[in-house]
């Protein structure tokens, strides 16, 4: 994965950071603030991660706090759980979300249930970070969107930021959270997306709260991660034709910000959910069920979903990869379809 693994310095203007710099900055700030914060994963040490998310941390904090682990994902999650039980705040990196599956049992059977199964005696304050999503020629095993597997599980929180500001603020919140948080970072956003991040300021963004990415009145479009940016682009095209589209960045897919979803749909009467994961039984299914059950009398049209196709994963070859990925054109088309109802 040479193309994904190279991490050149990205030029940004003052106050601006790339998405990945915001991630780095959150971990550095929290490690400086709290000695119990440790980072662990494959290649996170001297190399600084295959994407560079942990660049510089090993040099600054040493090998006892920035730990290169063996290539065994279940042990990354399981050891992090044990460390969290015994007073640490581990930030564990799965090199790609696609490789989180060997750790599924530790995350779902152990971390997620620890507080519940001990009647609040134990807790697992742990973050698992993982790059997800496609559009970088990563093919079947470096492009997956795995959030739905974990969003199904009570006891877990699943956070997926779209902007550098939110990435930093939400990652700090995740590290300070008393429960296990899965933190998915869209790998195409790492260097593509830049934005304002207050310099030297320690701030948090609350987990479980959506954000209005673009105000509008005629329809509500719900998305997270890279898709938020694509939805805003498509909404701008719609605006040229007089359609006012509201884009809601969910930011957290478990727990969902039910109130934000309902408020927007009650205002616009129409809803589209856009996500890159396989369409069936994804986050779109839950958002759409929530709207159907609780916003029925406000609806002026069917609730639509635009997702990735129901094929096992994203192919390598560029035309097939583009076929899989939702993009501004496909989103614009779906918006037009909903507007026409």
């Amino acid at each position, binding site marked *: 994965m040479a193309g994904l693994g190279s991490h050149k310095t990205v030029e940004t203007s003052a106050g601006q950071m790339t998405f990945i710099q915001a991630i780095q900055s959150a971990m550095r700030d929290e490690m400086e603030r709290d000695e119990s914060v440790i980072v662990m994963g494959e290649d996170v040490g001297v190399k600084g991660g295959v994407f560079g998310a942990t660049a510089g941390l090993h040099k600054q904090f040493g090998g006892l706090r920035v730990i290169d*682990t063996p290539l065994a994902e279940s042990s990354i999650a399981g050891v992090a*759980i044990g460390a969290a039980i015994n007073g640490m705040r581990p930030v564990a990196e799965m090199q790609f979300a696609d490789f989180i599956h060997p750790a599924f049992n530790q995350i779902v059977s152990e971390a997620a249930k620890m507080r519940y199964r001990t*009647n609040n005696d134990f807790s697992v304050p742990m973050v698992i970070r993982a790059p997800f999503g496609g559009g970088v020629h990563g093919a079947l095993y470096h492009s997956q969107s795995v959030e739905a597997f974990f969003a199904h599980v009570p006891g877990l929180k699943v956070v997926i930021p779209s902007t550098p500001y939110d990435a930093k603020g939400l990652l700090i919140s995740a590290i300070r959270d008393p429960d296990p948080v899965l933190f998915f970072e869209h790998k195409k956003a790492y260097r593509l997306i830049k934005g304002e991040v207050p310099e030297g300021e320690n701030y948090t963004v609350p987990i479980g709260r959506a954000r209005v990415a673009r105000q509008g009145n005629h329809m509500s479009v719900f998305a997270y991660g890279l898709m938020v940016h694509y939805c805003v682009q498509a909404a701008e095209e719609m605006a040229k034709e007089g359609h006012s589209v509201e884009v809601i960045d969910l930011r957290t897919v478990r727990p969902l910000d039910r109130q934000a979803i309902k408020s927007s749909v009650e205002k616009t009467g129409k809803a589209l959910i856009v996500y890159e994961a396989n369409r069936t039984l994804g986050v779109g299914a839950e958002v759409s069920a929530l709207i159907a059950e609780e916003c029925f009398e406000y609806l002026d049209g069917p609730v639509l979903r635009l997702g990735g196709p129901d094929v096992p994963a994203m192919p390598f070859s560029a035309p097939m990869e583009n076929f899989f990925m939702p993009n501004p054109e496909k989103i614009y088309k779906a918006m037009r379809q909903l507007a026409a109802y």
Partner: protein
Amino acid sequence: MKLVKPEVAPEIEAATLREMYRSMLLARMVDERCWLLNRGGKAPFVISCQGQEGAQVGSVFALDRGQDWFAPYYRDLAVVLALGETPRDILLSVMGKAGEPNSGARQMPSHFGSRRLRIISQGSSVGTQALHAVGTALASRSRGEAAVSISYVGEGGTSQGDYHEAMNFASVHRLPVIFFVENNNYAISVPLNLQMAVQDVAVRAAGYNMPGVVVDGQDVPEVYRVTKEAADRARAGDGPSLIEAKVHRFTSHSSDDDQRVYRPEAEIKQEAQEDCLPRFRDHLFEEGALTQEQETALRTELRKQIDDATQAAEDAPYPAPEEALLHVYGQEPPSLDDLRGEPRVTWDVD
């Protein structure tokens, strides 16, 4: 892998030997009570420690109960009683009553856990706890503490990938961990020769560059000695060890199993002759650490304690049904009703 047993048994004070015997006997008697309750329809599920108490108690007493971390598995009743759980805790657990301390009566019995006693909570997924022991050891070392973490497992659990990942991680980072295997030759019905292609789990330690020893689990002082050695090595910064205690399983896997279907009758009878409990008792008699009168009095005392605990558990209320909604997260949701499975009806029905 057989160790040369030293001529002289390890120095253990008479009072400690008595305390060890008390823990073993208490575990056996509590376990027997649980089966009675099961057969009487008052305990839906029982899974036993019987036959393995010696290995369990011998190992616990070799450790520092004031600071070490314990990751038991479901047979480790004697481990948790030696650490401070009580007969009342266990009886509340088998009856699923309110106030059950391991899980608030959420988990099946014998899924132990207590932050106060540093007993790491376990689920039912076998072998996962080894990684948690490694993680607690990583944290202890990060803070410069001398605590050791011990992970218990049956020989079947050592087939899990997690178990090998745990041994590898602990050894790479030279963490203060003891991998303690209670090999009773059966994983439910699957015998050792279908579980692994080696005679001794302990040989696997070599693949992870750590010491691995086999010990007779019926020989309590010897279990104590080898565990103490492993703990000393761990505290000195010399990394993890694997101890394999050869033990016997006197009962079926659980109250839902019948081992007569898959075990030779002669084997079951033979193993009953090798019970760790009378053997350790006789050792104490020989050492002058215990008299017959003291032993009889101890049984009477423990019987009374277990009778009282049984009565207390029978009298205890069940948890309120809605307690099932609590403690999913550290911060409860704005409304617990958000967690309910019923339809969200916002209109008048009648």
